[in-house]
Each structure stands twice: as C-alpha cells, then as structure tokens.
C-alpha cells in the first residue's frame, strides 16, 4: 500500500448527505474480478447522462475541480453496502482524502486498507470548507497525517482524530495481514486452547 504522509490537493465538494456506496460505484461495475480500473465508473449514474456524455450539472464534472484529489461531503458518507469497490473507485479516480462530518463504519475501515484517508471534521468546519471552496478559485487543502492537521493557505488549520495504529500503518504503508501474521503463534495457541484442530 502507498504510504500517506502529507498531501496537498485541489478540493471538490459534494453538497449531499448519506452518499451511499451504491452511488459511489453502481452495481453493474461490481462484476469485475480486478481491484483496478474502477475510477472510470465512479459516481457513474450521477456523472454521466443516459447517452454516455458527461452530466454538466454533476459536481465532479465542473471544469474547476478537474484533477481534484480531496473530496468534501456531508454527513454519513459511504453508507450502505460493504463493497470495497467504492474505495477502489475513489482512489483510482485520484482522490487521496475524503472529508465529511461522519462516515459509515465499513466504508471508513475499507479506506485504510487502500491508502485513502477518511477525515471526520465537525459540521461547522466542513461548512467553512464548503464556503471557502466556493469563493476561492483553485482552492486547495493540505492534509498532514503525521500532525493530524488539515489546513489551507487562508489560515484554516484544524486537527482531526484517527486511531494511532491506523495512523501509523497508513504513514508507513503497512499491510494488515503481514502484521497479523507476526502474531501467528498467538493464533495457533488460541486454536489449540479452543480445541480447533
């Protein structure tokens, strides 16, 4: 997994709550058996019109946010299905961080397996970012994972919370399975103690 340290990127906003994983990656694209190539289908039903052309009203199709790497949305982002394809699609599209007042549980945990950083911030901070993004052409945010800070060039500087072990693993790009297998002796001991032959 690609480590995440400090990232500065163009901000795209989606003024929607409860953005669910069915929207992030509609089911017709879950049939692939690879982990890659999902970015082209991100938000497919919102992003494209029936004839396949770009929907000019959709947030991410605005010329000003082309190339955005930081996504900001409203509460309960990533609700619904456990499909990790949602994270693969956001990541493959180019996003490195998602900021929202709250995240759905499985989505949140899936992000960390793929180097995408979900950042919970208060409703008022998210509102402030929405306002600034709207009034500042080319608005960028910097995310510093080590310091747990989100900042912009206009003086915004907000800290965010993250479990220390998740922070450490993401900073170093560590693979969970490899880490768990370091404790293989403990798993074997557990199995022995519980009669699992």
């Amino acid at each position, binding site marked *: 997994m690609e480590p995440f340290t400090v990232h500065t990127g163009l901000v795209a906003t989606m003024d929607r709550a409860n953005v669910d994983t069915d929207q992030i990656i509609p089911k017709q694209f*879950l049939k692939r058996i690879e982990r890659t190539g999902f970015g082209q289908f991100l938000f497919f039903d919102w992003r494209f019109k029936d004839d396949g052309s770009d929907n000019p009203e959709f947030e991410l199709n605005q010329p000003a946010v082309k190339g955005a790497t930081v996504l900001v949305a409203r509460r309960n982002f990533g609700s*619904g*299905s*456990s499909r*990790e394809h949602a994270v693969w699609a956001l990541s493959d599209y180019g996003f490195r961080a998602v900021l929202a007042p709250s995240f759905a*549980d499985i989505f949140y945990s899936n992000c960390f397996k793929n180097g995408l950083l979900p950042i919970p911030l208060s409703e008022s901070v998210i509102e402030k970012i929405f306002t600034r993004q709207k009034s500042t052409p080319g608005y960028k945010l910097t995310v510093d994972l080590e310091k747990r800070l989100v900042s912009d060039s206009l003086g915004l500087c907000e800290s965010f919370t993250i479990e220390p072990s998740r922070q450490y693993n993401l900073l170093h790009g560590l693979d969970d399975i490899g880490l*768990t297998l370091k404790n293989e002796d403990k798993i074997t001991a557990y199995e022995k103690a519980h009669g699992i032959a």
Partner: protein
Amino acid sequence: MFQKIWDKHVVFSEPGKPTILYIDLQLVHEVTSAQAFEGLRLAGRKVRRPERTIATPDHNVPTTDRSLPIADQISRQQVDTLRKNCEEFGIRLYDLHDPHQGIVHIIGPELGYTQPGMTIVCGDSHTATHGAFGSLAFGIGTSEVEHVLATQTLLQFKPKTMELRVDGNLAHGVTAKDLILYLIGKLTTAGGTGYVLEYTGEVVRRLSMEERMTVCNMSIEAGARAGMIAPDETTIDYLRGRPFSPQNFDEAAAQWRLLPSDAGATYDVVKTFRGEDIQPQVTWGTNPGQVISIGDKIPNPTDFSDPTEQKSTAQALEYMGLRSGTLLSDVELQRVFIGSCTNARIEDLRAAAKVVKGYRVNNKVHAMVVPGSGLVKRQAEKEGLDAIFKEAGFEWREAGCSMCLAMNPDRLEPGERCASTSNRNFEGRQGKGGRTHLVSPAMAAAAALTGRFTDIRHWNYKA
C-alpha cells in the same frame, strides 16, 4: 452478551491497537471475494482454515432457467472465478446447481452453520442477519475477507453497545419488517454507527427465528455493523436437527443458554419503544430511515429543522417523483418484488401467499417472487404457495439476490415505482432511475393486487 462473545474470541489485544479477534465462520459470495483470493495468490498465502468458510454464488445469478449458461459474460466469469477459487483453496461451495444454493444469509442459518456465540463475517453488509441467533456477525470489505482467509482472524476496534427494547405487542398485520423499519426511522440511517445493537423486550422475544433474522438483517441500515438477539428456546428449537448443527447438540444448547446478558448488564445507550406504536411502514425516500406509517402523508422539507435534512428530503422527493402531503394510499406503482435476504424465507412467502390467495395481480403491475434459497423454493412448492402466486399472475423464480440490487437481469426501468421487501431504497439500487419503497411481504403482496399502497390491517383475506 456482546461482551461475552467478544471476550471469548480475543486472540490478542494491546492498548491503542485493534484487537485480533478469532472468526469462527466466514461466508463467501462471488462479488466481493475474487480480489481477496487473488491477493492470497499474489502473496503466496494459503487459506488458514478452509473448513471454516463456505461459499455460494447469489448476487449475480440469473433467477430464470438455470439449465442455460449465464447470459451476461462478465457475470458468468465472476461465478466461474468463485468456483475455481473454491477448488484451489479447498472451500466448500454450494454452486449454482446445488439444491442448497441460495442467498448466503439464508443458507447459513437454514443449514445450521450459524450458531449462537459465534463470530461470523461475510463480505456483505447484511451479515448482521446471523446476529438473530446471538452471534456477533458483521459485514466486511474485500481486504478483510482476505485477512480472514489468511489468518482466520480480524483486526477490530471494540464497538459500543446499544439496547433497543421493544415492549408490549405488535398489532395484527404489523410484522418484523415494520418493526425494523420503524426503529431505523427513529434512529436514522447513521444513528447506530459505531454500535452493536441488541434487540430486546417482549415483542422481540415473541418473534420467530425467521422474523428475528429480518430485524437483525437491517441493522446496517441504521448504520450499525451488527445487531443481535439473545438465544432462547426459539433459537434452540430452530437449530435442532439442521445438517450442520453440533453433533453434541444438548451440550451445545446448554452453553448457548448461558449467552444472554446477565441481569444488571449495562449498555452504552438504551432506547425503549412500544410495540403498539408501530403501524405498517413504507419508505418514501432514498434511504431506509426515510420511512412513514401507511396512514401518513409524504413529508415536506420544511417539516425538518436541520438544513442538511431539508436538503436530503427535497433531493429524495425529486428523485422519487413524489409531492409532499400526498397519502401513500394514493401512490400507484408498477412493480412488486418479494425476495432478498431480508424477506425471502418460507414464513415471508406464506404471509404473502395468504394475502394473494383468491386475487389477481393488478393489470398495471408486474410482480415477482424470488425465494431466498433452493430449500425455501422447494418447501414453498410443497405447500402449493407457488401455485397461488402463479395463478394470481406473479412470476415464480429461482433463488438469488435478484432485484434487491439488480446485478442480474432483474431490474427496474427508469421511473418505475416498486414495492419491495428488500432492504435498500437508495437511488438506482433496483435499476437506474427506479423508485423503491420498502415494505413487508404482506404489504408488498397487497400492493401488487391493488396497484397502490394498501393498509394490510384492513385486508379481506379469502384464504
């Protein structure tokens, strides 16, 4: 109860780090597993405990004639990939033509794999279904599927607990589906985030196992990863004699009786409800928390004080093509879907058939019944339920997830309105532009016959 199960499965824990939790059973289906098996192959890892994983194709399978190959080439490849992976890694597969094939959350319990006190995971958010047996069961992502295959454990931060106690009685015509939709409406779709829900109270105690599964199934729709109901004699009676129930059954049952929370056990949050307050529920919006009672009017954005809620309501009304103030009974529909891991067990089909008997499907409605498993289908046919549905004009299909998420050819056309017994009314869930209203099997059946939402409490049964 949660604490007891959690403690028993801790392999290793240290402060500030997630616990390594032992997983007793993993269920696998075709959509979220291919990349996990591929990950194992790339890293040269094996499945640690192949006997603790079972697999079945369900999300993507056709529900029409199974003697034909799957028409959609990519779907076929996914189902074939599952078969190859199970062969390579030695995992038991209930394949497309197996009489036990079905929705993964339906076959686990009916075969007796799901048992009280277990930790159970699956790469599917509706894994909470299995919590109905007093197990800790939750949905995981594909990377975690791979983690469990490789290590038979999962890294977990300990969730908080919330008791949802429902006392009193449910009125005639009010079902487990109405109960859970009502609770989600009260909690909202994010109200359970970070919690394991435990459903308790007189109403919950009186539910059958199948009804308890319907309740636990939708825990995720309130944001909770898991929902649980303590095991009791109903649970034990259900499991007795199932193919994979424990050999030493009485001994196991004695252990299961020790699982319920002790008197004085505490929860981080407790919420109480009255069964009498619950009426048949219908969702009007684009998430399961946007739900009202059958007699209510479609809400107005200005009914909410929170600006985010106002905006969501307006967006949902626009997508759903509904006007504030409309009565649900005035809303016409074109499609009815009876199926899914929420409501496709035999009791669900019996409830729907009882409503249907002696009636015809409304001529503006296309209605289908998709049993949850091969076993449910055969049982229904033995009882003559298929004949009741077919004579009324319903389609009678093979088992699978079908139009719950429309990955297979069963789907809504843009603008079509559907009464569905499934679990999600998200935009486009049942087909792009499709409009889903979640209801109980009896309410779905009645809607198919009348062509509009109909209060089942006043139904004239001809059976």
